[in-house]
């Protein structure tokens, strides 16, 4: 079996080479193969692409373009133009801190409201009430940290996803944070926090969650998957992940003391329509689990809601500080 021996030697060498590529920060060969056209263009046009991508990033953070909100509501995703930045990303992406882009304004989106109560838990606690109350508290804390804050709703009003997207894009904030409360009826003993960024998923639970949250949008999940292929590499994606990691870290650190059994489910990807159509880095935070009876009871307690708000605000402020925002006083 000499030929088998030779083949094994070749495969082991390839495996080692791929690992060395990773250690040295090169894209592995397998990816280079599927990426070679884009990379060739990048190498050939580096002096055109980088300045142009930089211009587009700054433009997205400072001007916004209202007309792209139509993306959410047409029923033929194929007709949706992918954002220009999608075809212009460099292999290593742009590092916004290099350009001193700071975070000064935030739009908070309290999930559900009005005729849509969201999830409900023991004692009749409703997601729409919790998200509004927590968002209002977060707004106060962020304003103390010298950020400009707007909310998609500040009362018990019914808002479609379209309304939320239009409101957020019109405000042109630096970041968008949608606040929700999880419901996991299959595992009532769990108390979970997790934070989502835009992406595809094959996780059945996350698909169901996204399906629930997106049910008024007119899209199917299959439409999302096709649509997302065009926008996943948007310049927003890296910043959204940084924001999500910071917020998830803030939530876990801030809530673990109050809830020792809290499960940290980390940062995940899902095709939430509010994250597809908003034009700034955005996340969706599931800040609590209303299906857990103890948690539902605690959600009625104003002090506990303040703890959640503090944890969420800390995560947002930590991210803002990392983006050159003057350090604020945080507990």
């Amino acid at each position: 079996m000499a030929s088998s021996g030779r083949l094994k030697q070749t495969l082991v060498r390839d495996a080692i080479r791929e690992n060395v590529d990773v250690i040295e920060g090169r894209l592995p060969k397998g990816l280079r193969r599927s990426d070679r056209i884009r990379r060739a263009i990048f190498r050939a046009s580096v002096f055109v692409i980088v300045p142009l991508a930089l211009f587009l990033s700054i433009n997205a953070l400072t001007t916004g373009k209202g007309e792209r909100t139509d993306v959410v509501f047409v029923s033929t995703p194929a007709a949706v133009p992918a954002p220009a930045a999608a075809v212009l990303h460099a292999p290593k992406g742009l590092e916004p801190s290099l350009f001193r882009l700071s975070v000064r304004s935030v739009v908070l989106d309290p999930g559900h409201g009005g005729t849509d109560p969201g999830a409900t838990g023991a004692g009749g606690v409703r997601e729409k009430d919790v998200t509004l109350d927590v968002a209002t508290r977060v707004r106060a804390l962020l304003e103390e940290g010298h950020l400009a804050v707007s909310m998609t709703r500040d009362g018990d009003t019914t808002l479609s996803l379209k309304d939320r997207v239009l409101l957020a894009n019109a405000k042109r904030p630096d970041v968008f944070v949608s606040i929700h409360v999880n419901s996991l009826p299959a595992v009532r003993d769990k108390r979970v926090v997790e934070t989502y960024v835009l992406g595809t998923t094959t996780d059945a639970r996350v698909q169901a969650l996204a399906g629930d949250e997106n049910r008024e949008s007119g899209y199917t999940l299959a439409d999302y998957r096709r649509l997302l292929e065009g926008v996943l590499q948007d310049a927003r994606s890296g910043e959204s992940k940084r924001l999500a990691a910071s917020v998830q870290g803030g939530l876990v650190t801030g809530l673990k003391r109050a809830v020792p059994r809290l499960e940290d489910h980390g940062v995940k990807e899902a095709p939430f329509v509010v994250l597809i159509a908003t034009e700034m880095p955005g996340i969706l935070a599931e800040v609590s689990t209303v299906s857990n009876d103890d948690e539902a009871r605690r959600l009625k307690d104003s002090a506990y809601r303040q703890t959640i708000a503090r944890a969420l605000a800390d995560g947002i402020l930590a991210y803002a500080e990392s983006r050159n925002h003057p350090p604020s006083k945080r507990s």
Partner: protein
Amino acid sequence: MTSKKDVLHVGIDLGTSRSAIAASNGTKHVVESYVGWPLDMVARKIVKKTILFGAEALEARSMLDLHRPLERGLIKQGSAKDEEAVHELLKHLIALAGRQEGQRVEAVVGVPAEALRVSRQHLRGAVKGIADALLIVSEPFAVAYGMDALLHTMVIDIGAGTTDFCVMNGRYPTEEDQRTLTHAGDSIDDQLMKLVKTKAPEGRFSIHMIREWKEKFSFVGDPKQPVVARFPVKGKPADVDITAEMKKACESIVGPIAETMLDLLSKVEPEYQEKVQRNIVLAGGGSQIPGLAAALEKVLLDVGGGRVKAVEDPVFAGANGGLAIAIDAPEGEWEPLGA
């Protein structure tokens, strides 16, 4: 230059549900992928340890900050504790393998293909420092290597978090040779949980009980015997027939796996497609579900038939493959893989 005898070579299968190690000194161990830290001083006094692993951690879970760090085949991003848990788990496995004082450890770690695809650097950072040199490969590749199935073979590795597909066609697998699904052991658990809850709304059972039932009684196709689970209903122990629920939950992964298998087969060069169809290997814990291989063979009838067989040792197939790679890697080539 280090001689081979001064080195402990290890192959590790880092799995969502279980992690296994096979070492060149002949030792083999498997640990449930759970890591737990005592919640407080009282818990530490009771468990008498600063960190617990596997079944022991699961047993004492009420007193622990318990982590199952690879969710859906990925180290959960944004969670420093989960990264630490992966690190500690690997350290624990290497300690179990019996590293001698001063002995150099060269490790090959097989991970779900998705973990490699999504975040190679992130993964490498999380396993830094657990060995003197470290090579990370995709789990199905490790399985194929260990079985010497390097040509015209498809490996379907059904783990807890992910099902990884890999076509071996005589080269190191690239993106286009691999696929990952999150329809796997955990999704069967979720489905079974939901179905049993619907059947017995007043019953009380945990996800751990669901997992135990699945591991004992899973099947695809016709049941060999009724599946009866015992759990409290309205406070009293009751025997509940969950045969139909078990069948439905287990069969929920057949469709996605069959679809992906056929899709990958259609991408194989036409002159080799038939060979690959006759050489499909099921690995991972899910490979042991009775009737699954037969169900996939039935699907292959539509494309001219084929053969699907399960690996003999699903627990150690990946770790054995990793060990084979570690032993075959020339000593000089480990140099740049310092961890």
